[in-house]
């Protein structure tokens, strides 16, 4: 019997090349190509008065210099607004190279192509751009005050007013036994993959085709964008995402200006052109996320059950809105989490600032929503003197309430209907895992060591695997090798392994025979991309369906040959056999040969296949109507709506009351992503997410000054955690399969990061007894807080007492 593969910690097939230095990332490709570098705006808001390139022209090695003036046709138009929305009333995007006004430090103004990157930077240094500085808007509050406008024609700085409501919230609040209101902030961080972006473009003059390697999360869409913008026929453009050194969202945005400009130069110059983003460029010209101001009013009864929730928020979308208002929509719709909220209204203004654009970063608006809801739960508990776990428990959606309709519209335009879940189960597991009931004991023990201990928890529900679709192609070759491809891309999630597990399982072949390709438009042309924890759900199911198609065809052919009934056949270890009849079998590879009536005997397999070919039926064509040669199948998976994964995290912090250093001593995770393909990979995703959650809560922020200069645009000052800053994580699983898709999967990619800010804020608050209403928080800020006589004291609620 084939070894069990689904649900097993199968070791990754991508690893061997990556641990031996044989991976191929974009910057590893195309030795000897000309190198691009960019002159970027040093000002956050300025009008370009002139660009003087004279001094640059005689640098030895300069090949070309491009400014906005050199852009023609669609390239001279603004970059696309990828996801328009009726509430996005003032969308704005930049140009591939700035036209007249720059809107943030780092915006590309001039592209230089030279013999290598060193020379290209020399050339950049010699180009003089003169600017007239304009007033700068930094931060949500300044944007909202609108003393200055980021875009002249958007005087209130509001790009969109997103609004959803499920009933008359004001009436519901008025009718509530109790209400409370508060305001809180969350700041910016960024995906910060270890590999920056990169583009390599080769123009083939002989057949007028373009091949582009780019470090993207959406190669098919980059392809379409390039074809449209450079006015090429789609079939003349190939886009490949090779090994990608992390994405976390920033590489789903497309087309990045460089993804158009580098191919443009390659075509114009007739030579390969390459661009590798450096770290400073990544800080000032890629994307950030998270900044919001949230004003929350909640109504509840004397038992702590929420009766109404009203959220008013301002979301900083940076200078442009190429990715629409996905992030605020996700915040708005995911905010309610695992709780039944009878009446909910959310209004989020998405506002412009003179800063780097804001597009999804792992979690994509969910951490902010979780922060809003979970801190609300904490406040209700404090107000009523109840255990924070108990208040949560009383508000949870119950297992018999699924499917649960929140009457909201999700990021994919579909209703927010939770497919399945067991939230109480999560909470029970979390309380046990972190030792919630022993909190007071631990607090006392820490106090005896001079430390202030605090504990916090946060729960979330994460809409994962949104459509519209993904596809998969599975083909069995005459050699027995099984080729699998899907259009979406990989940035380290182990798709090659997980998808191979699915195919080996569905088809009954050894996993060693399966070869998976992702993100290569030469292999699969239709795809949406890797984001929103959708790869396993979408491509996983599509590939499973494709494999089932292959299996059905294989059985049909084999049944013919073996003169057996299809229902009596099974496939095991690559052999199609009649159940219970040893010897009555045919290798799948032979079936593959048989599937093609043209069988030149190039090899032994084809020669052997002819023995089975049997006398043909002269009355039928060799390929039946509706059939196709080859043992392959393409299928698509298109869900009616998203699945909803869920989880609960708890953090225990110890604070040194002399230095106010914050140490996360325990971090517990319980999560439920439905059926699991590979638990090793899922745990890895959780670990990575938690590290980013801790980073976002305690270390990382984008420190813009009032002039819109990013003061910490380096790894020296943007404090991404090293191992020393990441706590050990204990994990417990719960598996509540999704009824929506054949494999019962829910996404797992983003979950780890979502509750970090909320539960760490809660734990710090619990430790110091002061309100934490702005995250992230550093020791110097905590010190300011605790010695501020006006800082709000938090009423002590019991932790770990049975209700």
């Amino acid at each position, binding site marked *: 019997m084939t070894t069990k593969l689904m649900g097993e910690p199968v070791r990754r097939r991508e690893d061997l090349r990556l641990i031996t230095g044989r991976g191929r990332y974009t910057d590893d490709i195309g030795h000897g190509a000309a190198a691009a570098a960019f002159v970027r705006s040093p000002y956050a808001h300025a009008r370009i008065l002139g660009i003087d390139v004279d001094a640059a022209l005689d640098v030895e090695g300069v090949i070309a210099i491009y400014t906005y003036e050199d852009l023609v046709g669609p390239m001279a138009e603004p970059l696309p607004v990828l996801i328009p929305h009726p509430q996005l009333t003032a969308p704005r995007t930049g140009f591939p190279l700035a036209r007249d006004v720059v809107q943030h430090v780092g915006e590309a103004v001039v592209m230089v192509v030279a013999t290598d*990157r*060193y020379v290209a*930077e*020399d050339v950049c*240094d010699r180009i003089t751009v003169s600017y007239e500085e304009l007033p700068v808007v930094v931060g949500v509050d300044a944007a909202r005050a609108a003393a200055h406008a980021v875009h002249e024609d958007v005087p209130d700085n509001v790009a969109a007013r997103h609004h959803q409501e499920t009933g008359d919230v004001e009436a519901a609040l008025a009718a509530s036994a109790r209400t409370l209101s508060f305001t809180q902030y969350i700041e910016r961080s960024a995906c910060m993959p270890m590999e920056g972006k990169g583009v390599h473009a080769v123009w083939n003059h002989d057949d007028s085709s373009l091949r582009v390697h780019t470090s993207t999360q959406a190669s098919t869409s980059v392809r379409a964008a390039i074809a449209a913008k450079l006015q090429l026929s789609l079939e003349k453009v190939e886009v490949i995402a090779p090994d990608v050194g992390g994405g976390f969202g920033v590489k789903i945005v497309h087309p990045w200006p460089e993804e158009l400009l580098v191919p443009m130069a390659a075509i114009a110059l007739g030579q390969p052109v390459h661009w590798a983003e*450096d*770290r*400073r460029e990544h800080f000032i010209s890629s994307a950030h996320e998270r900044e919001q101001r949230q004003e929350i009013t909640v109504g509840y009864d004397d038992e702590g059950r929420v009766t109404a929730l009203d959220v008013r928020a301002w979301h900083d979308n940076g200078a442009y809105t190429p990715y629409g208002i996905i992030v605020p929509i996700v915040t708005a719709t995911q905010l309610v989490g695992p709780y039944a909220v009878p009446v909910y209204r959310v209004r989020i203004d998405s506002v412009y600032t003179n800063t780097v654009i804001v597009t999804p970063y792992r979690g994509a608006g969910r951490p902010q929503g979780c922060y809003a809801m979970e801190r609300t739960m904490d406040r209700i508990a404090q107000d009523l003197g109840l255990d924070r776990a108990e208040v949560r428990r009383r508000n949870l959606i119950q297992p018999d309430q699924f499917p649960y309709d929140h009457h909201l519209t999700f990021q994919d335009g579909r209703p927010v209907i939770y497919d399945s879940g067991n939230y109480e189960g999560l909470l029970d597991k979390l309380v046990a895992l972190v030792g919630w009931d022993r909190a007071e004991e631990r607090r006392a023990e820490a106090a005896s060591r001079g430390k202030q201990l605090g504990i916090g928890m946060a729960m979330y529900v994460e809409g994962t695997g949104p459509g519209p679709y993904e596809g998969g192609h599975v083909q069995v070759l005459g050699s027995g090798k099984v080729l699998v491809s899907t259009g979406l891309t990989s940035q380290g999630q182990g798709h090659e392994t997980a998808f191979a597990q699915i195919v080996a399982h569905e088809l009954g072949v050894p996993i060693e025979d399966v070869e998976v390709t992702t993100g290569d438009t030469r292999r699969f042309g239709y795809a949406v991309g890797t984001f929103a924890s959708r790869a396993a759900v979408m491509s996983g199911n599509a590939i499973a369906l494709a494999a089932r198609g292959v299996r059905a065809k294989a059985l049909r052919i084999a049944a013919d040959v073996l003169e057996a009934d299809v229902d009596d056949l099974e496939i095991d270890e690559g052999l199609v056999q009649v159940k219970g009849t040893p010897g009555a079998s045919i290798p799948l590879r032979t079936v593959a040969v048989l599937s093609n009536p043209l069988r030149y005997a190039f090899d032994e397999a084809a020669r052997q296949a002819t023995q089975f070919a049997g006398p043909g039926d002269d009355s039928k064509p060799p390929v039946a109507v509706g059939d196709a040669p080859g043992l392959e199948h393409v299928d698509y998976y298109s869900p009616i709506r998203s699945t909803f994964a869920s989880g609960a995290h708890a953090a225990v912090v110890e604070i040194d009351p*002399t*230095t*106010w*250093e914050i140490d996360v001593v325990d971090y517990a995770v319980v999560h439920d992503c439905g059926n699991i393909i590979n638990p090793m990979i899922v745990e890895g995703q959780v670990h990575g997410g938690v590290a980013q959650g801790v980073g976002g809560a305690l*270390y990382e922020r984008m*420190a813009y000054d009032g002039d819109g200069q990013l*003061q*910490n645009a*380096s790894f*020296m*000052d943007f*404090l991404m*955690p*090293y191992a*020393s*800053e990441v706590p050990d994580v204990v994990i417990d699983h719960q598996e509540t399969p999704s009824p929506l898709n054949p494999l019962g999967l829910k996404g797992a990619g983003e979950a780890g990061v979502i509750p970090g800010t909320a539960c760490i804020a809660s734990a710090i608050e619990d430790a110091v007894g002061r309100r934490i209403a702005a995250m992230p928080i*550093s*020791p*110097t800020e905590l*010190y*300011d807080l605790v010695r501020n006589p006006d800082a709000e004291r938090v009423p002590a609620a019991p932790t770990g007492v049975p209700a």
Partner: protein
Amino acid sequence: MKPAPFGYADPTSLDEALTLLTEDGAKVLAGGQSLLPLLSMRLASPATLVDINRIPGLDSVVVTPSGDGAGVRVGALVRHVELLHHAEAAQVQPLLARATSNVAHPAIRNRGTTVGSIAHADPSGEMTSVLALTGGSVTVATPAGSSAVGWADFFVGPLETSVHGPAVVTEAFFPALPPRTGTAFEEVSRRKGDYAVCGAGVTVTLDEDSRVTSARASYISVGLVPEVHDLTDAVVGQSVDSADWTAAGALARTLVDPDGDLHASADYRRLLVGVLTERTLARAAQEAQNR
């Protein structure tokens, strides 16, 4: 982020190096762990780099346990890692290894030089403060000859020393710890291995009856140049076991004048000065008893 063009020379004698350094825009390259990031970010663009790594005779640690010139002489090419593991040097001046263990991460310590970090004169660097606290000096070679420069005359501002024109710092001298003196070093940094938000190195000297005769401290990332603060007044004559280290911490807070930056406000640094002073003095005093 690639360096602007420069000329490169790797002389094999100090004289050659000094001659090369007479050229305009020439700069010494030692471990490169501070200089290369500056070059890559194009925050510095020297015309010529004079790589001193091939000059013989600059790579030794000479330990003189006692007597005249007791202390540790550290050559310009001694890497942080060597000092970290140098048992004899640690005997004579324990602050060296203690402070060095806080410098960056191992791979950087493998290449960065202790003298380079002193020549770099970064007030966030550990070794500048250690040089100050120990009352050390550097030997500066110029075409006119070699001379010793005391730490107080050497550091004139952040990333600025009194040495101008062609010069190579050939060694740093850290005097030995006096008898009945203990030391301690501690810092607070945002991430382990980062430059300190605040650090403190201290020495405490006791008399025969285990009473404090001297307590001195020098801080990291506090002030524009390394300074040594005498805290003796707060604890003088007090016995090791009952000394009021809190008072010494409080005194220290009044003596420093830190700045705020991205990672810490001035007030927070001042708080840390107090806390770290208290903690380190107590440890140093314990150690002093046993020396």
